[in-house]
């Protein structure tokens, strides 16, 4: 049984203009649309495509978060995941604790492949994938823009600063997704109905034996310094003159 495990994080929707709470304790989340982290959606889509090509039998979606995270897992099931597990946890769990929890589930489920987003668009940490690979002592292929499974190996093209790099990893391995890996499918209504019948198990960090005491404390959140709006110019000549005056060209 070839199983692919996909990590799903519930985050403030990509399109929401995030604002810091006046008291600096966080960002405004009341009444704000929550969604699957876009990179995780890409991870799920990739897993589904591998399964559809015959490269896997089952796609398992796993998330850590509060009870409401079941909504995002139901969406994952509607997209095509076969089964989901919610590890009930506080709103914010540090990447290392997330990696430890995922490792516990991996030990139980023995996936041939784990696909995670390269970063979550809320904390922008970009840590969980490599941390999990380290704890699991397995290969990692981060920032994937192309994944080819070939028997017990994966050939992964990675988006790196210098361009594209291709590596080969033995499975099982951890892959993290970049933006251009695929375009996730839209969920169809009948699939939403079907997803309600798919298994969604709920456990928690304590049951997994994972200590989630934070090692980093967020003291405060602040809005970023705003840039001043500059001047609007009328012609290209004005622009070139202005830049010359500042010695920029």
């Amino acid at each position: 049984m070839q199983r692919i495990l996909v990590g799903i994080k519930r985050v403030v929707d990509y399109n929401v203009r995030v604002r810091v709470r006046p008291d600096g304790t966080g960002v405004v989340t009341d009444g704000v649309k929550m969604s699957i982290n876009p990179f995780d959606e890409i991870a799920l889509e990739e897993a589904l495509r591998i399964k559809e090509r015959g490269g896997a039998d089952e796609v398992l979606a796993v998330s850590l978060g509060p009870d409401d995270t079941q909504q995002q897992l139901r969406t994952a099931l509607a997209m095509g995941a076969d089964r989901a597990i919610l590890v009930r946890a506080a709103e914010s769990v540090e990447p290392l604790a997330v990696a430890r929890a995922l490792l516990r589930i991996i030990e139980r489920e023995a996936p041939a492949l784990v696909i995670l987003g390269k970063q979550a668009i809320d904390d922008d940490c970009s840590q969980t994938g490599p941390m999990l690979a380290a704890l699991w002592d397995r290969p990692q292929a981060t920032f994937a823009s192309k994944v080819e499974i070939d028997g017990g190996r994966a050939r992964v093209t990675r988006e790196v600063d210098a361009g594209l790099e291709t590596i080969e990893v033995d499975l099982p391995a951890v892959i993290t997704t970049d933006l251009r890996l695929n375009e996730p499918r839209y969920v169809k209504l009948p699939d939403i109905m079907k997803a309600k019948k798919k298994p969604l198990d709920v456990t928690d960090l304590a049951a997994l034996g994972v200590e989630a005491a934070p090692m980093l404390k967020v003291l405060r959140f602040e809005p970023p310094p705003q840039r001043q709006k500059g001047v609007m110019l009328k012609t290209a000549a004005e622009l070139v003159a202005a830049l010359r005056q500042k010695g920029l060209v």
Partner: protein
Amino acid sequence: MNRILVVAEHAHGALNASVAKCVACATAIGNSEVTVAVLAADGTGVAAAAASLAGVARVLLVQGPANEPALAAVLAPQVAKLADGFGHVLGPSTTFGKDLMPRVAGLLGAPQVSDIMAVESATRFRRPVYAGNAIATVEATAGRAIVGTVRTASFQAAGPGGPAPVETLAADPPTTTHTRFLSATAAKSDRPDLQTAARVVSGGRALASQENFALIQRLADRLGAAVGASRAAVDAGYAPNELQVGQTGKIIAPELYVAIGISGAIQHLTGIKDARTIVAINKDAEAPIFEVADYGLVGDLFALIPEIESLLSSRTGATATVR
């Protein structure tokens, strides 16, 4: 004394510019003793370059054929071993550092502070979250190693200094064989490097084709600038991925940033907010890019780019500036 280990990024025998930024961050921690670790196949030149950065006390050169090209699975155990006795282990927020450092943190069981933009104390740092829509101040528990990635655009590069002593060690034979490097695109360009360039010209969706994107390249060459692109332009195939500027691409801080045909999604703006001067050219006067631009010009980029080019080369344009 804060003993800090900086992991050096390098390629093809050259020290990456991010190292001087990481050293600057390490120095900002205060009362610092900075060691730079160079893991390489043949890293003599790279180590010498690292040793001549101000603030570096020592360079550890760990040489072994498996260390190049860099693979996180091969390097991380070596870095974790070197990290013994260090309070901080820093790397850059580049794809090299984002790949390697969390693997090191995982091995050390240490917390990681990603994208450090400011140092408040040895345990307290500021970092952007939510695509830069909020700045978080985080504090790590004292007395435990901290792994960090440094947002290079936030720090002035460490200047010349030293030379610091270089200590050369032979790498242990790699125990990792499950990860193999196959190939890399040789994106060779005579243009300045996007991440360190003083001037950057970026194009967006409005360029409408890969052929038209050559207009951006021509203007960049005219200005001696690096070329950048918005996510939309990269997704559409007008520009390669390594040119993407923004939350999930490169975070840059040039003296001059020229955004052409880029509307200015928040994810893009987060990549350029440290630019000294931002110029925006867009046909939509309501585009959000104008909210952050120092100079805005509304109009058709296909008419304006050639006009700007000819003005840049014209003598009259040059005279006009003097007034």
